């Protein structure tokens, strides 16, 4: 495993004493965890316990009400752009344009991430997730699972070290779930980090899988 970035600081996400409230209710508090390279942390808990909010706090979408998030040893707020460049977030919303084809959606998603890819690479990534024949069809005519697969192709081409995944297996069939686990496996084997909120049991062949339970 090699370090892939300039600073030399190890890839590690540290969350200290994180708290978040939604309106008057305290969603969670005192959340502490650490994810290092090659590790997957599964966030578990009943519906409404704040899994999505926790993930959004880590990415910086939602401002936490307390606590600190350290990325490579530095508070994420001090250099949000570096944090954002190193993080790929796949949330509930697909971030797909119905009028654009799978190929165009993938192209624009990667350009937004500041990732330069060739048409050939994108075609291969779509073929790998089983969308080769449907890559020119507008996304509105793809099924829910096929739309999720575009997201898988995006993850495959995104060089981000930290994946933040909210229910990554939703709408995927068995083959799609296998594809995702393969991707995750490769990401962890390459020294990547992953944080996932899921009700499924994720068992990648490589990497350390840990759990965080929200009450």
């Amino acid at each position, binding site marked *: 495993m090699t370090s*892939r*970035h*300039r600073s030399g600081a190890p890839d590690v996400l540290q969350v200290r004493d994180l708290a978040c409230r939604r309106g008057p209710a305290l969603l969670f508090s005192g959340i502490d965890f650490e994810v290092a390279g090659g590790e997957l942390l599964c966030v578990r808990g009943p519906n409404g316990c704040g899994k999505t909010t926790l993930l959004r706090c880590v*990415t*910086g*979408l*939602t*401002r936490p009400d307390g606590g600190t998030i350290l990325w490579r040893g530095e508070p994420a707020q001090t250099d949000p*752009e570096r944090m*954002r*460049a*190193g*993080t790929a*977030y796949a*949330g*509930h*919303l*697909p*971030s*797909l*344009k*119905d*009028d*654009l084809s799978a190929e*165009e959606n993938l192209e*624009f*998603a990667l*350009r*937004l*991430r*500041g*990732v*330069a890819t060739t048409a050939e690479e994108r075609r291969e990534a779509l073929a790998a997730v089983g969308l080769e024949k449907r890559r020119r069809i507008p996304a509105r005519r793809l099924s829910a699972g096929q739309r999720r697969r575009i997201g898988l192709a995006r993850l*495959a081409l*995104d*060089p*981000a*070290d930290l994946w933040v995944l909210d229910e990554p297996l939703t709408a995927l069939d068995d083959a799609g779930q296998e594809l995702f686990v393969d991707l995750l*496996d*490769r990401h962890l*084997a*390459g020294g990547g980090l992953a944080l996932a909120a899921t009700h499924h049991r994720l068992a990648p*062949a*490589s990497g350390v899988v840990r759990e965080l339970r929200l009450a």
Partner: protein
Amino acid sequence: MSAPAPKRHQASGSFSGGFSWAMARDLRLAWRHPDEAVLTVAFFALVASLFPLGIGAEPQLLARIGPGVIWVGALLAAFLALPGLFAADYADGSLEQMTLSPHPALGWAAGKVAAHWIVSGLPLTLLSPLIGLQYGLSPDTLGVQALSLLIGTPVLSLLGGACAALALGARGGGMLLALLALPLFVPVLIFGAGAAEAQATGLSATPHLSLLGAALIAALVGLPVAVGAAVRIAVD
């Protein structure tokens, strides 16, 4: 298991990267679905053409009200396309990805507003001399009218973009947007319509155009930042 794929370089963001991304994507979407742009232009042409029918074909009166009517029509037409500017991206999660992108918010916010102007303000500007002919405006006045729209409509797009971003997520967002944006459009309307009117009455249009230009510079500097900040609040 296959060998890990070699990872490419860490993503990096830039203003131009975000700007060209937003502009290319929004223009392609507008091209796929030209109905919105066509509606904007058709609305403008219809509204501006209804006035002579309602008021009667009295050349002097038409030439007198022409610049004002054309500006009000252009302003309302530019407003028509505003509610959708961020709402679709908000609903499908694109705004989340944009806020999380390594590109600075300034870049994609400016790119989206620029794309909005290209599909609304620019066609209105290009069409305005044709509409002006219906009102019997002189060639000079038509020129000043088009110039004032060329400087003024980008200000409308910038102001409207900031208001559209602020109104995101609010119930009755469309109504709120009208209440927010239309009063802010008033100074632009006054100086824009004033420029052509001054030209028509034999005065110099330069002061009006200079003020519009100053407004455009101020809007260019300040409003994309405001759009980015408002979007960040909306996705929280």
